[in-house]
């Protein structure tokens, strides 16, 4: 048993980070009504600022400015910590003022998208400013010398210190919330914003203050933990954020102690998995760590019921309007013709950009069905795509199943995963569902995609996939010495067009009406005889099938499948770019495809400016935030609205004359 105690205590570092992140998420949710998916990424930046200061430089987060200010030498801990925390405070305040304040009354999905944009921006910033991650070592801050708890249990002291700090900060947060007027008013505002206004407090001030407080807390956590946990752009962004979301849900984004205790426990239990994997033969070797937060989140939602304060739940989960779909030669023909001609005429780099765009369009289509029509959300779309891609490799290589059947079967397997991850949607809505799918996607990624049993040996480039071959007609991208065959591009366009027509048809059909009815009003839908549960699961099924086809297309393009194409960031980007293009219609998916990273828009822009490439992700993230704030309808929706307004303006005088 002492072994387990050892690992449990060893997990105190992770547990403390999770607990304090969860507390930060709770503070932001209570104060501003926002679940900030970028919280870990923001905190990472402060950690990097500290690390950089300790080697004598301060990094500027704005492209175009000089990369850093050089002090020359280590500024010392007593300068570095306050400066890094000040950075965190400014960051929190700027992020609130620029991003979340304008979105205070926007659809909750716009908040989710904006925070994904932020997350992308901070990851890109870190990858740009700290390209030499490996060289960044941080000296110890907390006392390190080992401490002996029991006869044969000796652990480093710093993890226990961090846990003690987490508990102390938890106590502080609890006391502030319980005994100060500020805490009381914040709690009141979380229940009822108007009430706080009547008491003479500005909700804007409360929200801004909570962002600053949470950001400083996050920064502090990462700084203190950075000597123990190697900094990277993703470890705090995802690996600790997702369990923190789980812990915050246990505390219902409200109660401090359950949140802190759940966070500490998750970290400790995750740590014992190392031992369980060697003690229990059937214990999963991959994905157990990431699976735990998913299970915690599901249990929290099922057992405790859905209880995010009203501000961020159903009532504000409004979505852009859904235009009618028109499938005619005039709407379908020109885009296909343009794409095919461009594929035949332009060079291989352009062809590559077009292929990237077409595949991204397919993934965006999957979200048009799920989010645009169905009102559900998924941050796991690329995980479904990946399941199909790996299945395709198995089906085609191990069982020699031929071309059109193998990808359809593979997408059907993705459908099964989609329906399973979608099951919580029967009870859970809006932002909570975003959290569920976020955790579910990561669990799939780690459980399936990192497991050599399913995906083969990654060192050989991943699982191989043969070229699509239609009765002897090879449609592959590479054949013999031809490295970029246009026929593969045309194959992609045909598949995408078929799916697009299918999605437009769905919109016009009885199923589309049921989806939209359910999206509009679940109560009224069931009163009208619509089986809401079935409709939601159908939305997940259709959506993950399309995503699965998208995954197969990616697999065919690269000739093999590796987990790099199907990570969590890719899933977030898929939702973000689909929202950006316009999530409620097929033309929005086409726009999304054009806008995707390395797609046609970025490729042509980089042809003009030359140097855009390295800032592509960052620009994408910023664009996303700007779009979410300025144009919650998406680009295609915005353009359509402007046309509609103009048409109405033209028509109005005619009617007046009559």
């Amino acid at each position, binding site marked *: 048993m002492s072994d387990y105690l050892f690992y449990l205590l060893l997990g105190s570092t992770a547990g403390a980070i999770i607990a304090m992140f969860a507390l930060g998420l709770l503070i932001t949710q209570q104060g501003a009504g926002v679940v900030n998916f970028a919280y870990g990424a923001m905190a990472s930046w402060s950690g990097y600022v500290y690390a950089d200061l300790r080697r004598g430089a301060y990094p500027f987060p704005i492209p175009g400015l000089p990369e850093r200010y050089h002090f020359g030498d280590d500024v010392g801990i007593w300068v570095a910590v306050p400066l890094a925390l000040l950075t965190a405070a400014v960051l929190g305040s700027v992020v609130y003022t620029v991003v979340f304040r304008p979105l205070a009354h926007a659809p909750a999905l716009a908040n989710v998208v904006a925070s994904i944009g932020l997350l992308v921006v901070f990851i890109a910033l870190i990858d740009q400013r700290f390209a030499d991650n490996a060289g960044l070592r941080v000296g110890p801050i907390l006392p390190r010398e080992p401490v002996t708890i029991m006869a044969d249990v000796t652990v480093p002291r710093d993890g226990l210190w961090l846990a003690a700090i987490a508990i102390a900060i938890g106590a502080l947060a609890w006391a502030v919330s319980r005994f100060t007027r500020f805490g009381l008013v914040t709690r009141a505002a979380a229940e009822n914003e108007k009430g706080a206004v009547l008491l003479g407090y500005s909700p804007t001030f409360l929200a801004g203050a909570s962002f600053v407080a949470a950001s400083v807390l996050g920064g502090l956590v990462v700084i203190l933990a950075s000597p123990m946990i190697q900094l990277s752009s993703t470890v705090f962004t995802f690996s600790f954020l997702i369990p923190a979301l789980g812990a915050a849900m246990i505390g219902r984004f409200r109660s401090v102690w359950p949140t802190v205790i759940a966070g500490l426990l998750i970290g400790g239990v995750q740590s014992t998995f190392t031992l369980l994997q060697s003690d229990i033969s059937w214990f999963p070797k991959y994905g157990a760590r990431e699976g735990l937060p998913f299970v915690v989140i599901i249990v929290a939602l099922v057992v405790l019921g859905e209880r995010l304060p009203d501000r961020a739940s159903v009532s504000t989960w409004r979505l852009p309007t859904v235009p009618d779909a028109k499938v005619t030669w005039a709407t379908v023909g020109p885009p296909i013709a343009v794409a095919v001609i461009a594929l035949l005429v332009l060079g291989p780099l352009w062809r590559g950009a077009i292929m990237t765009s077409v595949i991204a369009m397919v993934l965006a289509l999957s979200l048009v069905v799920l989010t645009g029509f169905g009102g559900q959300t998924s941050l796991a779309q690329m995980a479904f795509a990946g399941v199909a891609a790996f299945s395709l490799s198995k089906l085609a290589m191990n069982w020699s199943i031929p071309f059109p059947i193998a990808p359809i079967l593979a997408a059907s397997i993705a459908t099964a995963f989609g329906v399973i991850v979608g099951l919580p949607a029967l009870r859970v809505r809006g932002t909570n569902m975003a959290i569920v799918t976020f955790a579910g996607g990561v669990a799939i990624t780690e459980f399936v995609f990192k497991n050599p049993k399913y995906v083969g040996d990654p060192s050989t480039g991943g699982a191989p996939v043969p070229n699509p071959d239609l009765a002897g007609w090879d449609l592959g991208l590479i054949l013999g010495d031809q490295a970029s065959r246009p026929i593969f591009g045309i194959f992609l366009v045909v598949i995408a067009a078929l799916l697009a027509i299918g999605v437009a048809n769905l919109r016009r059909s009885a199923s589309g*009406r049921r989806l939209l009815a359910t999206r509009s009003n679940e109560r009224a839908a069931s009163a009208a005889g619509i*089986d809401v549960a079935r409709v939601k699961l159908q939305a997940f099924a259709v959506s993950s099938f399309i995503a699965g086809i998208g995954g197969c297309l990616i697999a065919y393009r690269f000739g093999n499948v590796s987990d790099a194409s199907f990570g969590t960031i890719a899933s977030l980007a898929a939702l973000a770019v689909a929202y950006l293009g316009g999530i409620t219609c097929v033309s929005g998916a086409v726009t999304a495809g054009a806008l995707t990273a390395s797609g046609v828009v970025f490729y042509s822009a980089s042809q003009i400016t030359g140097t855009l490439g390295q800032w592509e992700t960052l620009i994408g993230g910023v664009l996303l935030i700007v779009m979410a704030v300025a144009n919650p309808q998406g680009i295609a929706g915005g353009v359509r609205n402007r046309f509609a307004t103009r048409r109405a303006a033209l028509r109005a005088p005619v009617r007046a004359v009559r």
Partner: protein
Amino acid sequence: MALLEARGLTVSYGGIRANDGIDLDCEAGRVVGLIGPNGAGKTTFIDAITGFTPVAAGSVTFDGRDLASASPSARARLGLTRTFQSLELFEDLSVRDNLLAAAERSSWWSFVGDVVRPRRRHGDVADRVDWALDTADLHDVVDTMPDQLSHGQRKLVAMARALAARPKLVLLDEPAAGLDTRESQAFGALMRAVVVDGISLFVIDHDMGLMLSVCDDLYVLDFGKIIAHGTPEVIRDDPAVIDAYLGESTAPEQLPIHTQEHGQ
């Protein structure tokens, strides 16, 4: 046997019995009304009948079938539909699509066919929807979105949507609230026309003029209990009803004939 039979229907919220042992029948081909002061439990009764709120005790039988295990949508598919006080239209769908969504029936696999042939119609769905549009006189606004309509038109859409599947019984939750006298009379005429077409109605409303003129049979609810039942003529003169509405020792002529209260 009546079309709808509630027996000993009891709904508790916390310790409070919002409905307490209600016995109520809706005969086919009739308009049955339920009146009572605010907070008497009228909407709770509709919620309980349609499966939107759990029933603590008692039973509901519809068309000879016990509804205990039926979900709200299953009840609607059996021919028991309702409207909402707050209308709850499908704001993302045009008026026609609002009605179609309510009239169409689906299976687990229907979306597969829909992807290929979106405009196919099943059975007489189009006829039913046209009939509902005719009845509610909505043909001029079929392609309009609900948020472009007047309040009166929105009420008609809510009614037409409940009719679109040609149910056996429609429960109307304050259909006349917010309508002026003329609109309210027109609504009364619409209700009678619906009954002539073979659909039975159950209605709760505060508009006593409407209720007394349009209902064949009236129940009076107070503090969750039925305190009177009879024809409008009987109810009009029932002393218990007068008490419930206006307190003790009030003359019959002071009964509120036309109140315009909203909500409960």
